[in-house]
């Protein structure tokens, strides 16, 4: 918990250290991505499931709130609530049949679902504005107070991220987290101890979808413009990359992975076409050599270095 408070503190101070607003944008996006990644980390690393369509939930939240606030004219707060709510409902509807599937079947089902949503976002031009996107989304307004300054919005986003992390830690250190770890090791034994496996899988699935939906809602009102290309298969893959980089089971790792993936394109400005290739390479190499992510790899590197040093001094 101390770490979480420290992390929150760092985030709050960060804007003052940044030279200009552009970096603030990256920070905000990083936090939004991290919200997605934390939820997915719970699903993949702890519940042992996979979702290749989580971008769909991100988009569902974003488009729902945009449509309700800009087109229908509801208040931003209400639209946001509806955005998250709809995401949760869809997650339950999709999760119930999907989570009965295993391994590659589940992967395909979530992938198919993600792509169907992606196609819907692109084709229902009347609602979503089609491929050219949805413009004119109102800025984030809470209880009549419009968050005009980006810094304020960032502080809110950072707060929500820390809230999600707090919820995740609570869950993982509770009987639910224990049940998840149990069913990861032995589903039979977990069942014999009274763990309702289907229920827990659905719970984590819906929770992770809710995190993504909430992030989507914030995303829409921050950028005031959204396009279907942000919510497609590639983004779902990016989310998996974030979780994999973070070591699958680690929530802080997922956050680091999220920021890494957010910042990477900035460094690859000159090599725009390398991004896709790099993500593919990261996925393959990480799954093969670094199953516990960057942190694990770093740790192993340090251990190897220490062993070499002590070997040299004893040699």
């Amino acid at each position, binding site marked *: 918990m101390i770490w979480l408070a420290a992390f929150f503190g760092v985030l709050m101070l960060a804007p003052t250290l940044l030279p200009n607003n552009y970096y603030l944008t990256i920070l905000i996006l990083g936090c939004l991505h991290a919200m997605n990644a934390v939820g997915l980390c719970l699903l993949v690393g702890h519940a042992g499931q996979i979702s290749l369509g989580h971008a769909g939930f991100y988009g569902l939240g974003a488009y729902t709130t945009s449509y309700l606030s800009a087109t229908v004219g509801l208040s931003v707060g209400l639209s946001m609530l509806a955005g998250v709510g709809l995401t949760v409902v869809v997650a339950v509807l999709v999760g119930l049949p999907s989570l009965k599937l295993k391994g590659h079947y589940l992967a395909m089902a979530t992938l198919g679902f993600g792509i169907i949503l992606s196609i819907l976002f692109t084709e229902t031009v009347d609602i979503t504005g089609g491929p050219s996107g949805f413009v004119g989304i109102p800025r984030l307004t809470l209880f009549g107070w419009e968050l005009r300054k980006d810094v304020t919005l960032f502080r809110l986003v950072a707060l929500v991220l820390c809230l999600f992390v707090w*919820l995740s830690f609570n869950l993982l250190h509770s009987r*639910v987290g224990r049940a998840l*770890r149990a069913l990861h090791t032995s589903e039979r034994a977990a069942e014999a101890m009274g763990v309702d496996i289907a229920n827990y899988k659905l719970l984590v699935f819906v929770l992770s979808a809710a995190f993504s939906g909430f992030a989507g809602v914030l995303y829409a009102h921050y950028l005031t413009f959204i396009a279907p290309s942000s919510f497609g298969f590639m983004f779902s893959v990016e989310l998996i990359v974030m979780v994999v980089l973070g070591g699958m089971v680690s929530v802080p790792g997922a956050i680091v992975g999220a920021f890494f993936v957010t910042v990477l394109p900035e460094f690859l400005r000159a090599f725009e076409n390398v991004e896709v290739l790099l993500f593919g390479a990261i996925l393959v190499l990480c799954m093969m050599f670094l199953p516990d992510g960057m942190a694990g790899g770093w740790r192993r590197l340090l251990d190897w270095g220490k062993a070499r040093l002590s070997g040299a001094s004893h040699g």
Partner: protein
Amino acid sequence: MDRTILGCSGVAVRFGGVQALADIHFEALRGDITAIIGPNGAGKTTLLNVISGMVTPSHGALRFEGRDITTLPAHKRAWGGMVRTFQNLEIFSNMTVLENVTMGCHGRLSLPAWHSLLRTPKSRRLEAEVRREAFEALEFVGMADLAQATAKDLAFGKQRLLELARALAAKPKLLLLDEPAAGLNIAETQLLADLILRIRDTYNLSVILVEHDMELVMRISDAILVLCFGQTISRGTPAQVQKDPKVIAAYLGGDED
């Protein structure tokens, strides 16, 4: 009051072309230690799997404490007080001994998930209670000092005890033991026999156990069911079953027809 805690009527199981169990009828009485024995391939573990809910019978019905549970999912049977151990140990190897045993309390001491999500005072009190009960169970089997050890690092005999402690933490009404003596030597089996008797008396529960070790079975069972090739060939007290010629033939091999 009917003393039957578990009743099987006409239970049959088919796996593809194989009839694993055919027309099994038996009743386990409350407070009894009922053993299911038989030569290899008799269907003993299949029957236990049917009772615990891991296998659905193709025919027949199962009643637990008078209620029909034939199609009740396994985890709900655990909630109802039926807990089992496994022949091939299924401990949670990456968790500590204590955590393993706390899993036993999972079905009995529960709260809606949002309590866990928000770490409410209620959930913290529940955690404390769960820890207490887990320690109790560990102390009963004599493993309280190993509480923080990682499960996969334990010796085999201790891992068996761990599974038992985990089952006890659930304070079951019916304990299903699947070959609990497998892999134990004579001394350990003796201790196990005493332990099972102690468990039955202290926790006031009923036991159904599947076993190969005849000494253990004859020593502690109140009733025995003998299976062979998926069919019941004998039922009764240990004394009766021991003298039953059909049982002797099944184990030693009858005359070739």
